[in-house]
């Protein structure tokens, strides 16, 4: 039993906990509502009977989207872009961050300026589009991967982390006859698991959620699942229409919700376990930057 020193402190604690409970519910309710809609019968949806609990429980919407080849295809594309993009990105960022973490390396300061300037001034939408187009990358999957290989914020995160590795470990390794590639592979990377996980997660989330680049660069067979969802929402793309015309809108609602849930599921499910890495990034980044 907690003892409150005064009435005002008790009221304050009550107020804090109420606000926090409300925030918690506000964060969760949209997802709960989507789950409820995706599991409800079209009849219950059309009669506006669904609140935060499914009504007329069934998995018809999920069965339907899984029988829909375009959805599978888009989901597969997203998995490909996420793994491919993250692998390319980590490779490039490690190669750049390691030399840049050596502040006494000649030319390092100029290179840092090149990186930082590009954070504040970018080519803009049209020049970027024309570049990708003149590199003949439009309508190829590379258009989703190559232009985003290095995110400057993540790069600086990695540089900051590499700098925390004690210099005498490297000196000892040089005496032992390791070259710089050896040091990077055998000493720096094994010590950087947490930083690599953090940067890798940010990158993976970026590629998983990306849709706009798919919209401007890809043809429909290459679309990622987020673009597929966006096209369902805007009505550009058809959802399953096996049911009668009268049921179409309510069917569409449960199917839309099922697509929302399945396309977000990996993030929602993995998030609680990986949360500490997500938060770590903002902390390392806050040191300078």
């Amino acid at each position: 039993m907690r003892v409150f020193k005064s009435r005002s402190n008790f009221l304050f604690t009550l107020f804090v906990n109420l606000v926090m409970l409300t925030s918690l519910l506000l964060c969760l309710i949209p997802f709960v509502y989507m789950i409820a809609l995706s599991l409800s019968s079209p009849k219950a949806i059309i009669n506006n009977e669904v609140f935060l609990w499914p009504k007329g429980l069934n998995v018809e919407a999920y069965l339907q989207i899984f029988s829909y080849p375009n959805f599978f295809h888009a989901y597969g594309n997203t998995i490909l872009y996420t793994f491919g993009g993250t692998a390319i990105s980590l490779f490039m960022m490690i190669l750049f961050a390691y030399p840049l973490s050596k502040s006494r390396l000649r030319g390092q300061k100029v290179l840092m300026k090149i990186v930082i300037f590009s954070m504040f001034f970018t080519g803009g939408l049209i020049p970027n589009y024309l570049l990708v187009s003149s590199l003949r990358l439009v309508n190829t999957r590379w258009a989703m991967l190559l232009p985003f290989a290095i995110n400057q914020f993540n790069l600086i995160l990695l540089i900051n982390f590499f700098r925390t590795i004690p210099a005498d470990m490297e000196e000892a390794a040089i005496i032992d006859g390791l070259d710089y590639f050896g040091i990077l592979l055998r000493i720096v990377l094994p010590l950087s698991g947490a930083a690599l996980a953090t940067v890798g997660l940010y990158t993976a989330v970026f590629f998983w959620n990306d849709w706009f680049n798919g919209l401007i660069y890809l043809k429909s067979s290459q679309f990622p699942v987020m673009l597929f969802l966006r096209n369902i929402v805007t009505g550009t793309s058809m959802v399953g229409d096996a049911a009668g015309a009268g049921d179409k809108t309510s069917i569409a609602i449960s199917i839309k919700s099922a697509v929302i849930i399945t396309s977000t599921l990996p993030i929602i499910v993995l998030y609680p376990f990986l949360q500490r890495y997500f938060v770590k990034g903002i902390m390392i980044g806050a040191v300078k930057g």
Partner: protein
Amino acid sequence: MKTYKREATTITAKKYFLRYWQLYLMLVLPLLYFLVFKYAPMVGNVLAFRRYRPGMGAWGTEWVGLDYFKRFFADPAFWRAFRNTLVLSLLNLVVNFPIPILFAILVNEMRHLAFKKVVQTVSYMPRFISTVVVIAILGELLSPSSGIINILRERLFGLDAIYFMNDSKYFRLIYVLVDTWQFTGWTAIIYLAAITGIPSDLYEAATIDGATKAQQILYITIPSIMPTIMIMLILNIGRLLSLGFEKVLLMYTPDNSMVSDIIDTLVYRTGLANQNYSYATAIGLFSGLIGIVLVAGSNTLSKRLTGDGIY
């Protein structure tokens, strides 16, 4: 003597390179990437001063000077987008700058540690959800025929359904509130870190002097995190013109375009949809230059006020 010295430096440079060539080899590929994918598009901005003809290269065909700039300066659609960008950004700043600070202060006051952990974990999550998903959920919550908000309005107050997503009156409000939902928890992490750094004896002394919680927040917590607040404010001012383009694009409908057409969506529409490449590049370049001025200005301001900048 002079020749000897020069020789000495070349030998050192050679030695230096022999010793560190692997480090330089590592950065060749990423540097090439920066030149191609970050710097070439910057140079590509010359398109704003040149006429583009399809099939005749990304650099345009002939110089037209400031023609495209003159044209969009005379275009009411540009000024509408400019005004919409400013209004939406400022509104967003006024609402969503203080909220994470308050949120962090309140989270810090939570005494039940398990509950605190749950609240923190859940409140960061929206930051990692795709904007497409966020707007899709919003569309269902606010749907006039089946959305839970309209159903509740009707059941509880007998009000008529409103097509929120399509009504220009609600666009700005919805945009700002979605931003609150997406980023409050995440942004609060920075303030929470600052609050954690406040020495606890300050609070102990205040408690002995009989200060209430509210007084402690007002006279200890907020003044202590003022430097962080200032840096964040300056950062936000530097980013004033860069709104969540994807979110606006997803929320854009012809019916709310009066308020939802911002500079970025205008560039997208005139450039990619209508293929007016040079004209759109000019608008994009103009807004990019304002962005640079804002960042540089706010950084100078930050260095003068807090002694620390962002670069």
